[in-house]
């Protein structure tokens, strides 16, 4: 399997993070392993990936792993793949990278990626076809709506706590939301 041009090809030596202009793997500060990004589309495209049509046509989705965020790595992977499915960056029936390939490319253990995929499968985002790999399931509209609502609630919750700390009333907030809503329609 071929990976993005910024990563070494099979057993390649040390040209990490120094790929050409189309390298989608940005290894920022890889010496200190702060975080790394990794283009999903490259992993299942055969041939010289940097030039693959799939890659050129589309905004590459990336997985960015932070070592210091305190969020478990499998959760970071799971949430980012979930987000890509929700936004449609990953389309129905699209293949995900193999568990072992992704572990190698993200430089995490196989158990980590296995757990992320198992969670995604349990939550109904992907399905595993034995011998073929993992694929994105049709987007569940109800699930998507619930997910969106929960994001909205989190954001509004923050707004409300800021308002309360500063003695700003409920009506003020509602007015703000209406104004912003109309602004964004224009």
């Amino acid at each position, binding site marked *: 399997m071929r990976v993005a041009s910024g990563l070494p090809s099979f*057993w390649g030596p040390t040209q990490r993070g120094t790929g050409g202009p189309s390298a989608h793997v940005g290894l920022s500060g890889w010496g200190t392993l702060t975080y790394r990004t990794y283009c999903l589309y490259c992993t299942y495209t055969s041939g010289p990936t940097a030039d693959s049509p799939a890659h050129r046509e589309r905004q590459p989705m990336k997985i960015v792993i932070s070592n210091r965020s305190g969020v478990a790595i499998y959760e970071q992977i799971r949430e980012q793949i979930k987000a890509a499915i929700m936004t449609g960056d990953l389309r129905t029936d699209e293949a995900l990278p193999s568990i072992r390939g992704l572990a190698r490319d993200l430089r*995490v*253990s196989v158990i980590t990626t296995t757990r992320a995929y198992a969670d995604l499968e349990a939550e109904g985002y992907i399905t595993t076809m034995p011998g073929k790999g993992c694929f994105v399931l049709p987007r569940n509209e109800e699930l998507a709506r619930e997910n969106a609502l929960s994001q909205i609630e989190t954001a509004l919750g923050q707004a409300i706590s800021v308002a309360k700390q500063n003695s700003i009333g409920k009506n003020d907030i509602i007015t703000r939301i209406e104004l912003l809503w109309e602004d964004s329609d224009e």
Partner: protein
Amino acid sequence: MSDIPNQAFELRDLTKAYDGFRLGPISFALPRGYVMGFIGPNGAGKTTTLKAMINVIHRDGGEVKISGVDSRVVSMEEVGVVMDTPMYVGEWTIEALRLAIKPFYAQWDDSIFTARLRDFDLDPTKQIKDLSRGMGVKLQIAVALSHHATLLILDEPTSGLDPVAREEVGDLLRQFVADERHSVLFSTHITSDLERVADYITFILDGRVVFSGTTGDLMEKYVRVAGDPSDLSAGQRDLVIGYSSHPTGFDGLLEAAHRAELPPSVLTEKPSLDDIVIYMNKGAHRG
């Protein structure tokens, strides 16, 4: 069902005694397709265990199975060994080494060896004694790949390497297990290498297995605790592994299951793998 055994290796009640040191009986196993880190302080018995596994030293008792077969009769083609320093004649060049070891391996593949030497920037005309620590490790990995080993056993492959070279070795191991038939066991005392790479960890202390299981389970089994010593009763203090107190407070390790038994004023946090090794070692050698 596949006819390949799903255990990469299995140790059962392995023992080995030297003057003043007794290893085991220790037992642990690794499912095929995963990386296991083998940790413990110097002198815990890591190298002895690895050497007994590959029959460099005789074991006193117990069983070692590799791919389901007794390690004393298993084909050594299956196993790639990376020791501290290459177990090859120092005056030989890499090319002479290739000619010397090739006949021992039915599956030997010259083209793989040549390609890996090129990838690793190893000059075939170089003498083995002139190789740096990192190059020696890479040479041994190249040999293992060339005879199609399915299990790599490495003794401290990253010690003495700078962070860049350590990361390269880590990448090689991950690349190796991208094939699900391949497995890796490596000992190390640099635990930062492990938290991300190792699927499983086996931790030994004084010749005994303290923990063997997934890295996640180990990290979730314990919490690091710190706080004011006067908040703890004597009984509570005994729960803290590797308890140490100083004028400004105490710290130690606690089994996460015991958290509720300590007062809420005690701070708890996720331990690092280093924390676990250090506190457990301290706890084992206290009084």
